[in-house]
């Protein structure tokens, strides 16, 4: 498989500072052939609103590049953050990585 689908798995606390670094990493991959991005939150312990803000910026960047971004494996705290800000309606979120694979990879490839 080439870089068509790319999976990112940040870890620890995802605040604004950390999300910005991670955002740059993803933006760089968009310059290649990446069309589908999955951010797996499996190892993210906590996210605050500035982390979420960076994710929104990332969503805009990804869409502008004609690509798609999906999220999976959000813990309860991150789910609460998405619900409180209604961002659960803006992002496409899968319960687990295998749900993403079944749904998206099958469909797109």
């Amino acid at each position, binding site marked *: 498989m080439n870089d068509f689908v790319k999976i990112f798995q940040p870890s620890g*606390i995802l*605040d*604004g*500072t950390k999300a910005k670094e991670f955002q740059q990493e993803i933006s760089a991959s968009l310059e290649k052939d990446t069309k589908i991005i999955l951010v797996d939150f499996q190892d993210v312990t*906590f996210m*605050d*609103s*500035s982390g*979420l*803000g*960076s994710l*929104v*910026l990332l969503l*805009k960047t990804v869409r502008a590049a004609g690509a798609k971004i999906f999220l999976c494996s959000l813990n*309860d*705290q991150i789910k*609460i*953050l998405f619900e*409180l*800000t*209604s*961002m659960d309606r*803006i992002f496409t979120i899968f319960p687990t990585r295998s749900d993403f694979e079944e749904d998206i990879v099958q469909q797109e490839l």
Partner: protein
Amino acid sequence: MKIKSSLNFKVKSNLNALDLVIDSFSQIDKITIPKKDWLQCQLALVEAFTNAVRHAHKDLSQETEIEIKITLVEGCLEIYIWDYGPPFDLQAYLKNLSHQKPNNWAEGGRGIPILHKIADRLDYIRDENNRNCLSIIKYFSPIQENLADERN
């Protein structure tokens, strides 16, 4: 009312102290607070802290201390955060916010709306020492200890 848990600590005005704030909050009794309420309060504390660093202490040294006090009484968690920033009219800000349609595509500006949604009472008061005190009061239905024992 009996105080079940209480915490008082100071942190510097540095976003790197976020780990410390999260770790400190984890000392608060998780047994009797429903998980959702506990997680919401943890998030509220973090939003309040980062707000103090980013906004209230924007023009102050990183050494400036932010004092945090958390008190848990039966069915109620109270979080107080003191900063040395300029006065700010939170109620006017909230009132103004209620007239605006939220912008889903904004990069920032979600901190105070989150606090407003989580807190049952939210206040920002100037005290006599030229500090501001943000108070976040959250009520919940406590889980009875015997049930909590079974759960764990």
